[in-house]
């Protein structure tokens, strides 16, 4: 178990992390998700021992490792741009960690080579041991980097934007493959990403970060379906957001009731967030919000309809199943919200 307690880190006047607490369970696949500048990479580097917090504690299995450097923490670190040693063959890259061990613990040369070959098999790069990194594709390089990190038998695997430099198709394949590898090895793994789709697809749990703090920790389902703040709601998955007034259990937009609230809510201003697929578009009922269609495009099996609501300039995105013709641009439709979440006007949950 890895535990972070009250971690803070400043770079000059910029507060990269502000009192972060986090517990990572053994064997889990954890995503640190956030926009750039949210502190996710800094947090990963602090766990690795490549950066050190100004304040707070890092514990591995109860042992305080805050002051230990990366060499003493037994972590594998995979860099966004691979950081392969370009003057060494793939095999020498993978064997590097074993070959720099102190003489007493260092396996014989032949043993290092055979271990490196096994690891290359594991990452499905069997015959490529004699190549140089420059002769490999991006996806292959990232696998070599992974094999190299695994060679030292780390107790924790840390990946910094591991798919960031790859094109979309390779990225998808590598993602699926990494998930399988994780299940096969059961190694506690933490990866950083700014891509919410990647986080939701790969991780057991997602840590959503913003401005140096953790906004929410939860399973992909929890983070998507019950976001704890307006930020999470808008950052994880697409979300529409309308300013509303609450009055006697209903949310009003431009003095029109658009959503019936469940449970007790006060009166006053708030924000109503709803997903594009939690909406029905039709000719319009009493609660329906007038929508002027301004754009339509295909997103897989549905139409993504963009429009402005109730004569304002606010743009709302709606998904409509693509088994019928798309609504015409310029047409006026009624929009009913089926499921929504309410946040305070400043983004806090309400």
């Amino acid at each position, binding site marked *: 178990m890895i535990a972070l307690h009250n971690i803070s880190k400043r770079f000059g006047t910029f507060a990269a992390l502000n009192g972060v607490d986090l517990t990572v369970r053994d064997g889990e696949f954890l995503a640190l998700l956030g926009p750039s500048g949210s502190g996710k990479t800094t947090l990963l580097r602090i766990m690795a021992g490549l950066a050190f917090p100004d304040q707070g504690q890092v514990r591995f299995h109860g042992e305080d490792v805050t002051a230990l450097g*990366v*060499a003493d923490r037994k972590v594998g670190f995979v860099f966004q741009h691979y*950081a392969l*040693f370009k*003057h060494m063959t793939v095999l020498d890259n993978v064997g*590097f960690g074993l070959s720099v061990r102190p003489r007493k613990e260092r396996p014989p040369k032949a043993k290092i080579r055979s271990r490196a070959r096994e690891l290359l098999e594991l990452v499905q790069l069997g015959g490529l041991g004699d190549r140089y990194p420059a002769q490999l594709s991006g996806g292959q390089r990232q696998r070599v980097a992974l094999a*190299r990190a695994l060679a*030292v038998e780390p107790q924790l695997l840390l990946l910094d934007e591991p798919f960031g430099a790859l094109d979309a198709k390779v990225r998808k394949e590598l993602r699926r493959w990494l998930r399988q590898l994780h299940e096969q090895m059961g190694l506690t793994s933490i990866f950083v990403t700014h891509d919410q789709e990647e986080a939701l697809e790969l991780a057991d749990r997602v840590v959503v970060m913003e401005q140096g703090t953790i906004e929410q920790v939860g399973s992909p389902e929890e983070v998507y379906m019950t976001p704890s703040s307006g930020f999470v709601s808008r950052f994880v998955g697409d979300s529409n957001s309308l300013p509303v007034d609450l009055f006697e259990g209903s949310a009003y937009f431009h003095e029109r009731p658009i959503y019936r609230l469940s449970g007790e809510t006060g009166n006053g201003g708030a924000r109503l967030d709803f997903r594009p697929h939690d909406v029905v578009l039709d000719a319009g009922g009493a609660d329906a919000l007038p929508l002027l269609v301004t754009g339509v495009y295909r997103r897989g099996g549905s139409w993504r309809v963009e429009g402005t609501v109730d004569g304002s300039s606010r743009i709302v995105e709606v998904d409509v199943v693509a088994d019928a013709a798309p609504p015409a641009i310029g047409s006026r439709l009624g929009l009913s919200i089926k499921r929504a979440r309410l946040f305070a006007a400043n983004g806090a949950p309400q």
Partner: protein
Amino acid sequence: MSVSVPFRGDRMVRIALTLAATAFVALFLLLPLIAVFVEALSKGVAVFVAALTEPDALAAIKLTLLVAGISVPLNVIFGICAAWAITKFDFPGKSLLITFIDLPFSVSPVVVGLVYVLLFGAQGWFGPWLIEHGIRIIFAVPGIVMATVFVTFPFIARELIPLMAEQGRDDEEAALSLGAGGLQTFLRVTLPNIRWGLLYGVLLCNARAMGEFGAVSVVSGHLRGLTNTMPLHVEILYNEYNFTAAFAVASLLALLALLTLVLKSTLEWKFDYSHGSVRH
């Protein structure tokens, strides 16, 4: 030389520019270089060889090799340290350090020599103390080495700083995360990454160290057979109207320049090559 011009320039302009550049190179660079060899061999090979093998000339050659042999390794160490500190760490006064590294490029070498005389000469700040302890710096080999080190300081650091800045810290961090120590990381990861750039810097540094005249001239005292380097020896011979001998020694320096040029081109080719797609 296949530079594509973004606009259709006049053909005549192109030819005129090429001719001007070629004529300039021929007149100011090539012709003097040829003249050195022609003059050196004008009285036959025997005189040429004799000029190079007389004791004072041999002493000058030896001293030049000694000075380069000391100052180049020193600047390799300084250069790597400075480039390492500047590119891998953040510290206050970093830009000031970069400015200071460039100082030898902007100061006249004669001024450097004079400053050393002012500091370490018999009448200088540390002069009395040095005399008391029997240490000779000015008009002796240590002064020549110090002046050469100063003048050649920027060559290696300047070559390494942009290279190491471009490479970033990822490789070193990767090595550390794999359990390598500081020295192992330097020898097995950093040094191979910078080796071509370093060699290039060493080459330029060496050429300048052997050819330096101004600063060395001030601190050396021109003691024949003792504190004369090759450039100083050339000047003495020339002032004595011994032109053939002067050009014979000068031709050695010219050969060094040509050799440096060839090695430099080879390295540039290698350097680009290793940055490209395949192995070095």
